[in-house]
């Protein structure tokens, strides 16, 4: 198990470095950070001053090499815009994104599992179809569209939540719903499939013969087993929430890692983008690893090696 975790950790680092290498060269080919910092109407003099100030006049391999050496020493560089170490910047913003990601995951659970159970208990009925329809719609609707619709409905027409910001728990309700909605179909369908399979198992028949019915049967016997694969999927979904927060955080003006990523990409703030890619890749791989470990821990038939 330990060896497996170490191997996956190394894999995570390899993924992060590969992605960062690609991102570094692509960003530098597609944009000119000095021009982005200087603005549209900046003179060449100003652009040149900025280019020299940030060492952007060095060849790309040299700059990537410098970045890599810094990273190996624990120094991810300094943001072109914020003038502070990007590690500090990311640490400051991480809390907000973690809060949003966990809130979004809670939304997913609260919607998807009851919906999946409803569909499983009424297979191939209009209830099943409706649940499927709701889930598929949630996945099909783009984040930015759903976000603005939620703002119009619940912040403008019926102003019960704030439009934007991240000061209080009320600021997280709408973005958590928007971010959580996209994971509903996967979790809902897995819950439905798992429950349908479990409901025909022998031990459920035994439980029924003991007099268990309805909610009690579902809670005490069926869900426990049906949700095993769901738990590992939720871990993966949590990782995706970090990357998926880019649009949601921008629409709701939440100062988390997602918005930082978007602003950094648009502004060609390469050191910040590099570190964010690194963080997102590590989180994603870590969540996948967590899913594997959870699977093994919850189901003794699974062994990881």
């Amino acid at each position, binding site marked *: 198990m330990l060896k497996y975790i170490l191997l996956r950790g190394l894999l995570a680092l390899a993924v992060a470095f590969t992605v960062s290498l690609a991102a570094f060269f692509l960003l530098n080919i*597609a*944009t*000119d950070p000095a*021009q*982005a910092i*200087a*603005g*549209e*109407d*900046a*003179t*060449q*003099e*100003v652009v040149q*001053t*900025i280019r020299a*100030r940030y060492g952007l006049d060095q060849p790309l391999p040299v700059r990537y090499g410098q970045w890599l050496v810094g990273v190996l020493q624990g120094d991810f560089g300094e943001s072109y*815009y*914020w*003038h502070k170490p990007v590690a500090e910047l990311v640490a400051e913003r991480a809390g907000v994104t973690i809060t949003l990601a966990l809130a979004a995951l809670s939304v997913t659970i609260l919607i998807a599992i009851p919906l999946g159970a409803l569909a499983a208990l009424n297979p191939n009925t209009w209830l099943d179809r409706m649940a499927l329809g709701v889930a598929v719609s949630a996945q099909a609707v783009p984040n*930015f*569209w759903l976000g*603005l*619709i939620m*703002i*119009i409905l619940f*912040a*403008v*027409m019926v*102003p019960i939540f*704030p*439009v*934007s910001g991240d000061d209080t728990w009320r600021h997280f309700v709408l973005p958590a719903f928007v971010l959580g909605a996209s994971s509903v179909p996967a979790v809902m369908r897995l819950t439905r499939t798992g429950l349908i399979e479990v409901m025909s198992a022998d031990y459920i028949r035994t439980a029924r013969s003991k007099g268990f019915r309805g909610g009690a049967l579902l809670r005490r016997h069926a869900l426990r087993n049906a949700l095993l694969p769901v738990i590992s999927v939720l871990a993966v979904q949590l990782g995706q929430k970090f990357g998926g927060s880019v*649009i949601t955080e*921008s*629409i*709701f*003006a939440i*100062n988390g890692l997602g*918005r930082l990523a*978007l*602003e950094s990409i648009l*502004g*060609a703030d390469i050191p910040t983008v590099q570190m964010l890619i690194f963080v997102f890749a590590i989180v994603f791989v870590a969540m996948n690893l967590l899913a594997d470990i959870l699977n093994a821990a919850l189901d003794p038939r699974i062994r990881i090696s």
Partner: protein
Amino acid sequence: MKHMTTRVLAPAFLAATLFAAPAMADKADDTMRVAMAEEILNLDYNYTTKREYIILAQMTDTTLFDLDPRTQEYKPAVATGYAFVDDKTLDITLRDDVKFHDGSVLSAEDVAYTYNWIIREDSESNASGTIGRWLDNAEVTGPNTVRFHLKSVYPLVLRDMAQRIMLRKAGTYDEGGTVDRDAMAQELIGTGPYKVKSFEPGQELVLERFDDYFGEAPAIQTIVVRNLPDIGTQQAELMSGGIDWMFKVPLDLAESLGATPMASHLSGPDLRVAFVVLDAAGYTDADGPLTKVKVRQAINHALNKADMAKFLIGGSAEPIHTACHPAQFGCDQSVQDYPYDPEAAKALLAEAGYPDGFELELWAYRDKAVAEAVSADLSAVGIKVNLRYVKLESLNQARASQDIPAYIGTWGSGGTADTAAIARIHFSMDTDRNLSGDQALADEVLAAEQTNDQDERAEIYSSALSTIADQAYWAPLFTYSANYLVSPELEFPLDPDGLPRLQNASWK
């Protein structure tokens, strides 16, 4: 994404207006909340360049002179007056009642320090290039007098003093010999009508009226600047009363929401102009069609710039025929105009030896609809356009490599109503924006910056602009307009130079 989301949702926003209560401005607590999409990270305009920072600097800082946007005259601000001792020596007298936000009084030493710091090599200020071009050094000559020694004759000294250099206390950037270029980035001590109350970079800036400001006190007590990256979110905030002012609003959205009781749409002029730059010098093809003046004139005739201004930009946008904004000093409107005439364009192409047109690679980086309209107009006279719609950085790189036959450019002149602000950067020989290759024109443009005689300058620009028009180095398109959405409770005056001055806002 910003525009796409708002366009997709415009009908939904309008539907919402039927149900929502009118937006409540914060007149009650005398706080104006404004939205900016650009993240505000540095409050020191001596180290920034973008428009948002100019808007903020006008509130937090003062300069030696002020530009009157209506008369285009430079009026005393921190300076009470000036006198040229000779062509290269300028004496400035200062007020004695200017206070910094920390309560200390501004001195001649502070002024001299600020200017001398900016031109120091290790200052790395974004203003160094502009000021270093003409300033040799600033010298304190009395308790309230500073002498500026110029490297050469430079007629735009007052402009640069009015617009580029924000005054700092002596020692601000190198206290104790330690250079700190970010000294004023977050904890700004300026001399403007508003002082910084709190600042969370990238999130929120709170400005409070500075009671010891030497000039006319602004009407509104507190201004809160919120960073809201998505324009759809800004609209929702405006509708729900979360903000009172937003700018850079797409025309269709401004008109839609402005027609409701929830917001007022204001449209004012903007010094930004759009134009097509043509490779007359033949950098991309030494004997190509664009090296022929008749082809370039044909392109000018082919473009329906009036329709582009009216339907694609709207508001106060106007077609132009000069390589400058009509509101700028020296922008002579009597130069050759090429009215929209596709038949004349075809005839000129035939005369130039291209009766069936030719293939043209046209680059553009913003306003895709305009780029497509230009392409369509050129196609209509037989020029087969290959439109390269790219990011600004890519266009700049290609232009630096002299690899662009034609591009649609725009220029805002940094809000400066003087032809110098657009002519030099586009027609001097040391800029890659100059695709004319015309040395005589370049000399003329520079000559206009070598004299303090305004009549002479106007004459020189008139001649230069005539050359540009006659040779059709550019195909000028139109001026832009600036669209704002504001709370119905807010009185927000618009100035002819298009620069939003939040300090002039008041409640109705």
